[in-house]
């Protein structure tokens, strides 16, 4: 689970677990976990990031089976950047490689590992809503998870997916970028939210909690009725018992 989900959007985590369990996957949450180290790494503080990454490896090296994260950013960090950070430390690098091979982003796991067909024949996802999909940058361009989310969403009965103009353009989050270059980040967010509003969809769906917090914060400030939800929440609601409006277990 990602640190942002844990602290800011625990519902997303619950949705991930719900969906996976409905598909017969046994889920564990190693308690020792904190953050993957990406925020510091992206800010140039590699020594700090490296220590936290080491902790991440300690925790997950002790587990078995696929590791599923509902985030492209964290997935990319572990899969791609750990090996760079541990350059010159052969043993850590090897550990990073092993853990990295077990990491899957949530939709990637559903489609590429489980095969989405199960989800559709067994669970018959259904929900009445209109939505539009924002292609989170790291999911799309660091991990190459470019068709899985659309495939999953497209097959939810009753969910009308509306195309967004420039859906692949960054929302302006970028971690500390949003704070350090607040003006630029805001201009990018405005463009994104304008394009999302123009779709007329009631929900923006995205795959990374950072982007979701960013867009949600902007929408709230605008006083918009549109909401932003993680794709796991949508799939949870669509596959859950009908009376669970928000997907959280009662």
């Amino acid at each position, binding site marked *: 689970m990602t640190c942002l989900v844990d602290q800011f959007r625990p519902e997303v985590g619950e949705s991930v677990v719900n969906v996976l369990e409905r598909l017969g996957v046994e889920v564990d949450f190693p308690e020792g976990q904190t953050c993957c180290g990406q925020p510091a790494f*992206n800010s*140039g503080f590699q020594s*700090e990031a490296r220590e936290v990454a080491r902790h991440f490896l300690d925790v997950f090296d002790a587990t078995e089976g696929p590791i599923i994260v509902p985030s492209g950013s964290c997935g990319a960090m572990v899969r791609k950047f750990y090996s760079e950070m541990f350059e010159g430390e052969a043993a850590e690098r090897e550990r990073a490689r092993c853990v990295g091979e077990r990491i899957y982003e949530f939709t990637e796991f559903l489609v590429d590992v489980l095969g989405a067909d199960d989800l559709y024949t067994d669970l018959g996802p259904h929900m009445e809503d209109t939505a539009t999909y924002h292609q989170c940058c790291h999911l799309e361009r660091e991990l190459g998870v470019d068709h899985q989310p659309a495939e999953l969403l497209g097959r939810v009965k009753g969910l009308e997916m509306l195309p967004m103009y*420039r859906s692949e353009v960054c929302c302006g989050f*970028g971690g500390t970028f949003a704070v350090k270059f*607040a003006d630029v980040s*805001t201009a990018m967010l405005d463009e994104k939210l304008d394009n999302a509003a123009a779709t007329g969809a009631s929900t923006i769906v995205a795959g990374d909690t950072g982007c979701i917090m960013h867009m949600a914060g902007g929408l709230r400030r605008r006083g918009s009725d549109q909401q932003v939800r993680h794709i796991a929440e949508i799939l949870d609601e669509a596959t859950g018992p009908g009376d669970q409006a928000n997907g959280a277990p009662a």
Partner: protein
Amino acid sequence: MLPKTERFKQGARETLADPVIQESMEAVYNGFHTNRQSAGQATEGWDAQRDRGRAIKEHTIANLDYYLEMLTDKVDANGGNVFFAEDTAAATEYILDLARARDVKTVIKSKSMVSEEMSLAHEMEAVGIEAVETDLGEYIIQLAGEAPYHIIAPAIHKSQDQVAEMFAETTGTDPGQTPEELTTTARGMLRETFQRADMSVTGVNFAVAESGSIVLVTNEGNGRMCTSIPRVHVAVMGMEKIVPSMQDLGMMLRILIRSATGQRISSYVTMVNGPRRDEEEDGPEEFHLVIVDNGRMRLLADPNLREALYCLRCGACLNACPVYRKVGGHSYGWVYPGPIGAVVSPVLSGLKQAKDLPFASSLCGACREACPVRIDIPNMLLHLRHQVVEGPREVRSVGRVERLVWKAWRFGNMKPGRFRTGGKIANLLGRPFARGGTFRRVPPPLSGWTRSRDLPLPASTPFRDRFKKRRSRGRG
């Protein structure tokens, strides 16, 4: 050109507030960017061609000494002169000395980013040599006394009205001229200069090592005029602009032109093989090739940054970049704007002064996706960020507060208990100030966020606690 790279934030703010520029930057995406995408899609084996292009650059840069020597020998054999300039001062001096020795009064220039590094037109004017830009965009910004806004479209930020006004001021034409009339006006003024010019300075898109030829790609034909009319031709190139063979050149031209404008072939591809030979009618009496380092060796020496030398200066990364489209070209403060500028400018003109540039990116990766030779710009930005934080003393520049913040972050993330407690404390402390679970304003260092976005309060029950509860319920 003197770097003003420290002005990034200020420049960005000014640009964001300028509706004319914001409007023209839309054209960058709707025109260049989408044209490039369609050109890529329409080209069979496009991705394989990009891979081939990258492989050519990798090979060339890895053997740069060898190919530079080969190029030098060939240019010599063709009757030209090669001068290797360590920095812009040396390059400028060579060209000015040459101009004086040949009694040059008027110089025509075609587009060259390296000559912008040198501020060559300025330097010439300063010693009384008339220097005229012949690329229409360059001509416009020369009149305006500005730096290029975009690598291939230097005056992209100027509206048609602004250009008409500027022309009216300098030449007394009607300020209501249409774009076609403006082009004709500029042509007229330039044609007359072409006839007078005794020397030309051009850029180089590619230099072919095996034949000693240099290649110019233009859409206006001015490159051809520059290389054929004046009696002295000086071509200026960054030392990375080399390709081994004619066959490689063909491949590189294909991907450059498609990536730059989305065309299949630009209107003019000009090849120069040294000065005019006895049997030829056109061409200069003298040909000089100035090869400029100016910090490129530093890129070459750093394996993390070497890829920057693969750049073809096609501008695709600028067009794809959501930050560039908001902050514009001048905010980057030196010759090269946009994503590739954020890498090259700090290394070539000084990282300490340009320390904001590597951070002015959301690392969205659109540049790498657009780049014909797949240069991993985000990765190089990360490397430069690391330099700013933990690099050698002369480049390091991070405030004490930020260092403390990350130390605390590290402390909080080393033990799950601390992590959980941190969230709890933030929740409790924040609760009285939050409305409906979010903050409308928070103090620095996070205040930038809440300028335009609400910030959520950490959850009172984090996921880890919910998960535990679930398990105790489910299994207990």
